[in-house]
């Protein structure tokens, strides 16, 4: 089961996080949950809308960048936030991802709102094998 922690010590105006997963699928799903947690208290969001997403990128780290960027895009373009994700990642180039997201339209009366992420940055962006699984560091501009 993946986990994430928010990092206090880098990029003080933004939101830095470290995400650890048992494998790539787990890491990508955990990172999605972390991004949702930046936007809203996940406990206040229903899981009533499903959305399938498929992405391809020339490298694994760019696939993670595009994946998290997609979640931020959906927040603005369709007011959707997805705390839950099942993700399948193919790590060999060209890297691919197929995901099923679960969440809801941002209901301002129901959801406890947090920050409004602008973008995923490349600042100290990293994705690497770690302790038999994978680890990523991501800074989100908020």
């Amino acid at each position, binding site marked *: 089961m993946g986990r994430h922690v*928010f*990092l*206090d*010590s*880098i*990029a*003080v*105006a*933004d*939101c830095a996080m470290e995400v650890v997963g048992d494998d790539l699928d787990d890491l990508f799903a955990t990172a999605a949950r972390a991004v949702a947690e930046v*936007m*809203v208290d996940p406990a206040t969001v229903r899981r009533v809308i499903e959305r399938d997403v498929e992405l391809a990128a*020339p490298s694994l780290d*760019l696939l993670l*960048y*595009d994946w998290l*960027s997609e979640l*931020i*895009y959906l*927040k*603005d*373009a369709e*007011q959707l*936030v997805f705390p839950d994700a099942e993700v399948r990642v193919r790590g060999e180039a060209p890297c691919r991802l197929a995901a099923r997201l679960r969440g809801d339209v*941002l209901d*301002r009366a129901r959801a*406890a*709102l*947090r*920050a*409004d992420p*602008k*973008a*995923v*940055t*490349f*600042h100290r*962006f990293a994705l690497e094998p770690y302790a038999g699984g994978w680890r990523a560091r991501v*800074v989100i*501009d*908020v």
Partner: protein
Amino acid sequence: MKTLPIADCVWEIPPSEKPGMRVPARIYASQALLGQMDQGVFEQVTNVACLPGIVRASLCMPDGHWGYGFPIGGVAAFRADTGVISPGGIGFDINCGMRVLRTRLTEAEVRPKLRELVDALFAAVPSGVGAHGFVRLTEDELREVMREGSGWCVRRGYGWPEDLAATEGGGCLPGADPEQVSVRAITRGIGQLGTLGSGNHYLEIQVVPPDGVHDAAVARAFGVTGPGQVLVMLHCGSRGFGHQVGTDYLRRFDQAMHAYGISVPDRELACAPFRSPEGQAYFGAMTAAANTAFANRQVITHRVREVLGRIFGRDPRELGLEVVYDVCHNTAKLERHVVDGAPLDLVVHRKGATRAFGPGAPDVPAAYRDVGQPVIIGGSMETGSALLVGTAHAMEETFGSTAHGAGRTMSRAQARKRVWGETLIEQLGARGIVVRAASKSGVAEEAGFAYKDLAEVVEVVHRLDVSRRVVSLRPIGNIKG
């Protein structure tokens, strides 16, 4: 890293301190502010000094803090003919900026209706994550906004013609190219015109305090008459539209720069030659986003006028709700500056830095031509903000640039651990500052203790003469995302 004092409030890191530095890095700060700057500032300001075509020095203003790529507070000018343009030197919130409106209202008139006013503004100007704007646009109309900026709003009745003259660049920067904007940027931003955003963005009711006028003559030129006068300040940018433009081009430059043989010490500094197809495409899209940000602040201005007119039962013109100025602090602009005694076309990147052109400089509105361009420095909702004026010395020292805010000293997560948003709202209420926010945790993140001392930042830029202190402003009402 060796940081040498070279003049009062000027510190220099020589090129010998890091391989690849083409010019020195220069930090403008008092000893106290320098001590508060995190290590990231020194790392990033010297990284920027490594970029191709940089002229004179990589600069950091006294409100500087750790950003991504460039430090926040970073200013760098690159030769237009051989230098680069970098999305990391502008930020994702393209043309994030400040606008101030003056009023003929006094605190004594506003105070009895303050709660009602703040509630009405909170309802009229959507803020926070997932907010919809009140202006419904077609895609073609959004492209018109990209080309025309604030002018589109005035043409559609969301403003007064004179608002344009009181906006940097007339509210429309040249070079916008909607063809270089992705469909995703359009679909992401089309519903957000007239929204405030979250984070450090705000709409604030402010008052000139009893000792708040520092330069009466310039204050008069800005329409600030004296203590007790109420002003309205807003801080926001291009919203999801600009954020997507930044994302698209950062991703594109990350791959494209290798074709130009450019390597950078930080991936967030991805860049392309300004005159390359990629550089020109980004400049066109970024300028389109900048114009959209002007339009965003313009339609919010319209809403503010509607609300104040309704609450006080008077026409907004009778209330004197005129724009003092609107100024960007996240842009790259093509400007001509004198370098080594000769005029040179430069792409001046300002990331969390405000243009501060002096008297007689180009693009300073006629009303301010004799005194200089108004500079708006936004502080925290606790400590207040400041109006300053640009100087001739800024043109020589900082490519006509100054600070933009107080600058953070503490991360958002640390601030949340120090105080609950609800508690802070109560504390501010007890001090006469009414706060409405879409996110309570967001309020905690913006607590005054998370920022540097604004007065110290203003003191430094004043001493450096890269802008001069004119008026201090104290908040009495704040709307946040």
